[in-house]
């Protein structure tokens, strides 16, 4: 399996009044294509910051300080390696949504309340695959069934021919300013809406024709999350990042959404990166898992390995502290609490809570090491 994203020594800091929060501490990670990768950890351990750094949407006062993120893009059948952190903002905008897209935690906050669902879904089509859609409209215009009057038709033909080469060409920008000619893109928008209906329909939303005309407040939580997924999937991304996509939903709706993601993965998307704090979700949907603690990645392994044979003491403790179907008696507890990342502990950041602390742990930071079976662990106590 080839790598899809390679992250090396990624460092992200937040410059707050209290000091520098070292949210990501030299993280190195490789996500393979075709897999569902789960990222687990408690809140504040840097899961979201990691994926936001990949997408380069870290909010101020956060700054990506160093490292590299290599993205293997398949363009016209060729493999291309892009270094995401060195791209310009304009180039990054082209990648967001079309190559890597993201589902956010709160569907209420991710959707604009004053724009219709259809507009919000088709926005992504209009931004990324305008040329492709222009070509499609042009094809329709050429067909004999079309009965627009001759003058208007020849104008449209010209406009869409230009548009199919470059959607931001000068003539089109001029048309956009002239009152009568302004509506040249009506058919383009209709095409985008048609595609939106198609994709919303694929996500098992009932009555997609009515849904595109409605507004976010008309829909329930589960439906909204489906629409957010539809926006993310619109342009067939290589990688879909789901940032706590189901944690605000009810269990029955969560089950629907997870089922949907599994189904979509088989058909449309190559890889999913799932961020969650729910180990049950990880066990049911992921193939490979990374466990994070206080800005460090402490263990990466296949899902069976993590659950059957966890090696890092934090992973073990985390697995034991979750109530399960089979739990009897008291829950195991991790003593202490998550450290403040303004002054993180020296050495391994888990050492103050770790039962296996050695002298070495207090001074040096352990690296992620391969321990066989594609199992990477960052701990001195593991041989």
């Amino acid at each position, binding site marked *: 399996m080839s790598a899809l994203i390679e992250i090396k020594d990624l460092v992200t800091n937040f410059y707050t009044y209290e000091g520098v929060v070292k949210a990501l501490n030299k993280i190195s990670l490789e996500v393979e294509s075709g897999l569902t990768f789960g990222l687990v950890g408690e809140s504040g351990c840097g899961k979201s910051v990691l994926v936001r750094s990949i997408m380069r949407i870290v909010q101020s006062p956060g700054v990506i300080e160093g490292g590299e993120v290599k993205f293997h893009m398949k363009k016209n059948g060729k493999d291309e390696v892009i270094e995401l952190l060195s791209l310009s903002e304009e180039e990054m905008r082209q990648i967001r949504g079309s190559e890597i897209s993201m589902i956010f935690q709160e569907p209420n906050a991710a959707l604009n309340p004053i724009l219709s669902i259809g507009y919000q879904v088709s926005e992504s089509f209009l931004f990324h695959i305008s040329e492709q859609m222009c070509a499609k409209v042009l094809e329709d215009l050429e067909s004999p069934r079309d009965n627009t009057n001759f003058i208007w038709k020849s104008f449209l033909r010209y406009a869409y021919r230009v548009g199919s080469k470059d959607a931001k060409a000068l003539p089109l920008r001029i048309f956009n300013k002239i009152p009568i000619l302004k509506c040249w893109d009506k058919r383009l928008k209709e095409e985008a809406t048609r595609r939106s209906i198609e994709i919303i329909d694929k996500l098992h939303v009932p009555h997609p024709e009515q849904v595109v005309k409605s507004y976010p407040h008309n829909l329930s*939580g589960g439906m909204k999350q489906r629409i957010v997924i539809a926006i993310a999937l619109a342009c067939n991304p290589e990688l879909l990042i789901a940032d706590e996509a189901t944690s605000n939903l009810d269990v029955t709706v969560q089950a629907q959404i997870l089922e949907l993601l599994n189904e979509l993965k088989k058909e449309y998307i190559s890889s999913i990166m799932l961020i969650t704090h729910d*180990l049950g979700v990880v066990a049911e949907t992921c193939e490979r898992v990374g466990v994070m603690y206080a800005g460090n990645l402490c263990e990466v392994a296949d899902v069976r390995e993590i659950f059957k044979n966890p090696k890092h003491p934090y992973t073990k403790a985390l697995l034991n502290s979750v*109530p*399960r179907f089979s739990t009897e008696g008291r829950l195991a507890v991790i003593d202490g609490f998550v450290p403040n990342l303004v002054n993180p502990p020296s050495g391994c950041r888990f050492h103050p809570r770790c039962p296996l602390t050695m002298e070495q742990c207090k001074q040096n930071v352990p690296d992620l090491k391969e321990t066989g079976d594609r199992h990477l662990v960052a701990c001195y106590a593991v041989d």
Partner: protein
Amino acid sequence: MEKLIELKNLVKHYPILGGILRHQVNAVQALDGINLDILKGECLGLVGESGCGKTTTGKAIVKLHEATSGEINFHLKKKDGSTEVKDIVPMSNRMLKKSGIRGKLQMVFQDPTTSMNPRMLIKNIIAEPINEVENLKSREMESRVKKLLNTVGLGEQHLLRYPHEFSGGQRQRLAVARAIATNPDFIVLDEPTSALDVSVQAQILNLLKDLQQQLGMTYLFVTHHLLVVKYISTRIAVMYLGKIVETAKTADLFKTPFHPYTFALLSAIPNANIDKKSSRIILEGDVPSPLNPPKGCRFHPRCPFAIEQCRTVEPQLEDVGNGQAAACHRKEDVPKLVKDKFNFYFKN
């Protein structure tokens, strides 16, 4: 077992005002006839999806919300050992305080950050409920507060701090300390761990379990997380859209549920056990709006086994033996139907 609280046909409607004269045009039927007995010394788990009225039930019992109709009978233990049954729905706050019930009913809220006044010191926060029920000198009060802090695993050094200086788990401990300050008989725990991380959640759950054994309190544990409820409670009531659809002892509910909604809820829990992958009952659609709930059985639009009777006649909560009760017309057939249609087996 002795009863502590009986809910009899409890109804809570939130009015929606409209029109020029701001008259009531409609009502959110948050609770629609709840019958529930809470036994002494038990931890009753109340589960359901969001918007089904779990929190409203809890708040109605501690009288944070005035119930529209129905009875809440509280069995108050008097000093001479006899018990007195009192309906607290028509009582005013003053009467509640006078009869000594106010201090016996307490609540822990979901989000510890918003449930504490950020401008009060910890010692004042915890002393506030004690002040309501008895007059203590400041020294006695301080030693009492210290004792309470020790019971929840915090120390003297925390007395003169503000809530923002604590982590989420510690704040929830403070909220628990505040709730047990007046030696209550009954505490409503409204999703006390849903704002916490898993490792901290385990600490709080263990603390609550220990406290219950030490102080002999009764809990109403409101949550949407079935595994948490399985860990802590002795009996579970499942709610759907303002109605209780099933009550059972914890072990029975997980082994032999009767209501199709319970089946769906149980099968929807993401299971952290990698070996046993079981099939799922995926419900279609979402919970309907409580503004105009469906006629007949409220679950019928989403129920895979609905028959004609379900659309017209509302099922009552009926006993099916072994202390288990379910509100479903086809409760006897459901386990078999589920097995045939979904090939569902239990994960434990």
